[in-house]
């Protein structure tokens, strides 16, 4: 008999992601992904000055602040055909890359590692063996037996005091937890070290962006970072070298810790390289521009359909019609008035809430489509597109990952295993390694360009009378983000944001094609319906971000999340 499981955080934040799965024979047969919060924030922008749009879009989401700011200025620049000075491109790229490294490290260690790591089991580990194992995998100096012992004592102290703190709601002893105690202990040690490194990399955003979490240095047409190597108040040598030091430091952590941990977990949960593929159409956009027009990039973008890497199609520029003309959104199963599929320039946002009905409307999220097809976005899409296009750093890190994980598991792993739940974690790590290298390159490009005497940071925009349309995209940590604008007589007439989690979390469309979350859950095992850890593993692997728009604390309330089994 089939069982219906609903995973529904009720609300500290007004509405959320809700996942419903129907389980039969220990496997998920059907799944529904539902955004429980109405956003439609874009309408706040109507009538405003396009030069201010980024300040407002930066507030769409508390986690992806810089991401929406960057996409917005690119959108207005695209509408005006405005070029961006090289220094501004490099400074933006460095902010984008620092943000991405921060975000990916936090996602792996602080938001999803506990799906795989059993903290309580770490108490049974032998610190000497843990250190020996760690040292066989990595030269990282933070893996000594003394450090492992100290972390174990700390966990012990928390357990004995009955205060497992952050880990209280973990799935200890769940049958799907399979790491040996030593690997669990090592992972807990790195969880703590990662806290320090994610703080460190965030400093780059503060140094270049003026402030975090909401950066201050952007402008339509460039950046507002005055460059003067001799001035304390401008971007100077001192600040540039502070950025360089952090980049060096963080790349050591990424290559010697994050890389190794993901390879080890992939090797020890090989079955999860087989679950969770779902939609194997992939979309990524090019990013990290190397010229003023946005025609050359350090991260490639493109599309792949049905997992066929041989027929990858590249998205070549910031103005590529292949992207512009092929994006649409459907509201067939979303709580909006109507049943249309429209291009973002033509969209409206008229909410019409009914109830949750499996076969009708069940989500506030719209369903974005590319040439009418659902697409998976995110690091996996970007890595596969890069791999298929022969992007050297992506290929090198992907091969190294498969070889290293394969060596630990003593099997040969092919790139096909990346179409999976753990493949998404591996791809996020591969992308972080590529970005860490590329950030150092862009630091060098910025320093060299300033060294040549170029201190230009801004091309002033001018707005002609009449109507202009523009789109801007950014390959954000969670995948392809695009903003779309219609400007009329210098004011915003329409604005739409098609965000990564919409591509992935969207409901079925007019043709009843499920979205990537929904498709990826089908076939997942569920050992214990009361504790659907496996469902969370697959959903977490996408790094969902739907919940950040509103923040209300609930210090007096009761339980705010439920796992309901019907």
């Amino acid at each position: 008999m089939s069982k219906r499981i609903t995973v529904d955080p009720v609300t500290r934040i007004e509405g959320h992601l809700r996942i419903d799965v129907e389980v039969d024979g220990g496997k998920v047969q059907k799944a529904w992904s539902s955004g429980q919060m109405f956003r439609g924030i874009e309408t706040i922008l109507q009538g405003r000055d396009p030069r201010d749009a980024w300040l407002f879009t930066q507030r769409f989401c508390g986690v992806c602040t810089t991401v929406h700011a960057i996409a917005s200025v690119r959108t207005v620049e695209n509408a005006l055909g405005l070029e961006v000075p090289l220094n501004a491109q490099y400074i933006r790229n460095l902010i984008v890359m620092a943000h991405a490294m921060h975000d990916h490290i936090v996602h792996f260690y602080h938001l999803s590692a506990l799906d795989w790591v059993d903290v309580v089991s770490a108490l049974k580990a032998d610190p000497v063996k843990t250190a020996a194992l760690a040292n066989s995998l990595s030269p990282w100096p933070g893996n000594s037996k003394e450090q492992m012992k100290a972390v174990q004592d700390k966990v012990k102290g928390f357990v004995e005091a009955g205060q497992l703190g952050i880990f209280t709601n973990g799935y200890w002893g769940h049958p799907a937890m399979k790491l040996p105690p030593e690997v669990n202990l090592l992972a807990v040690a790195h969880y703590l070290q990662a806290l320090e490194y994610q703080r460190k990399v965030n400093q780059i955003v503060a140094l270049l962006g003026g402030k975090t979490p909401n950066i201050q240095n952007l402008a339509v047409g460039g950046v507002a970072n005055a460059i003067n190597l001799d001035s304390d108040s401008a971007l100077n040598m001192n600040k540039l070298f502070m950025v360089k030091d952090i980049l060096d430091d963080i790349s050591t952590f990424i290559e010697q810790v994050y890389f190794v941990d993901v390879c080890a977990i992939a090797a020890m949960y090989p079955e999860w390289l087989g679950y969770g593929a779902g939609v194997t159409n992939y979309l990524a956009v090019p990013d990290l521009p190397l010229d003023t027009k946005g025609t050359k990039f350090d991260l490639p973008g493109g599309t792949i359909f049905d997992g066929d890497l041989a027929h990858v199609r590249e998205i070549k520029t910031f103005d590529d019609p292949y992207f512009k003309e092929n994006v649409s959104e459907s509201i067939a199963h979303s709580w909006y008035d109507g049943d249309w599929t429209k291009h973002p320039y033509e969209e409206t946002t008229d909410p019409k809430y009914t109830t949750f009905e499996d076969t009708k409307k069940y989500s506030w999220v719209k369903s974005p489509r590319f040439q009418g097809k659902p697409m998976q976005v995110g690091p996996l899409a970007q890595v596969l597109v890069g791999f298929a296009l022969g992007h050297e750093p992506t290929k090198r890190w992907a091969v190294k990952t498969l070889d290293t994980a394969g060596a630990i598991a003593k099997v040969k792993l092919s790139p096909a295993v990346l179409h999976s739940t753990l493949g998404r974690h591996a791809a996020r790590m591969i992308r972080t390694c590529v970005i860490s290298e590329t950030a150092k390159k862009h630091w060098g490009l910025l320093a060299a360009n300033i060294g040549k005497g170029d201190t230009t940071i801004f091309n002033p925009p001018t707005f002609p009378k009449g109507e202009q349309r523009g789109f801007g995209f950014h390959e954000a940590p969670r995948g392809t983000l695009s903003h779309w604008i219609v400007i009329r007589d210098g004011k915003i007439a329409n604005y739409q944001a098609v965000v990564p989690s919409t591509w992935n979390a969207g409901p079925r469309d007019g043709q009843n094609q499920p979205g990537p979350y929904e498709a990826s859950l089908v076939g997942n095992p569920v050992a214990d319906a009361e504790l659907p850890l496996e469902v969370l593993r697959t959903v977490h692997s996408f790094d969902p971000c739907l919940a950040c728009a509103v923040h209300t604390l609930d210090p007096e309330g009761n339980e705010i999340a439920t796992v309901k089994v019907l």
Partner: protein
Amino acid sequence: MSGLEKVRVLGLGNVLMGDDALGPWVIEDLLARWEFPQGVSVVDVGTPGLDLTPYLADAEAVFLVDTVKADAPPGTLKVYSRGQLLSRGPQPRVSPHDPGLAEALFSLDFAGCAPKEVTLVGVVPGKVEKGVTLTAAVRAAVPAASEEIAGRLGWLGLRPARRPGTKTEPWWEVRIPETACA
């Protein structure tokens, strides 16, 4: 994090969602109408989830300003201690961005760099929905929330001084759409 002082006032909330802007609004109010001594950072941190950790780490004292759910009329000011904030324990993580204040504090506790003192100055919201203005009741609570924080900073010997004759005008409310046409 670099550039942050040991005593911090952090405003939480989304400026595009009506009364949820309370936290950032109070930050704007504090920065416009008060002069802070060395040793205090006053920051609008938006809605960062677990990304709040860098702002809490290694602090001596943190004052948070946010909307709170409580059984009281909109605009009611409520103050909570660290113990009250943590009494419920962390919540199950469903979406990876669920973790909030309690989770960030637990995580820093485990790492050994949690702030020593945490105080939440909360205001009960009226309408939390798309929009860039506060409801009258919540707007009226802003000066009281600022006074509350100023007073508590005073207990630490860090009381800010009033700047006479200044007005608070948050950018998200005052930016009047003007034509950008050349």
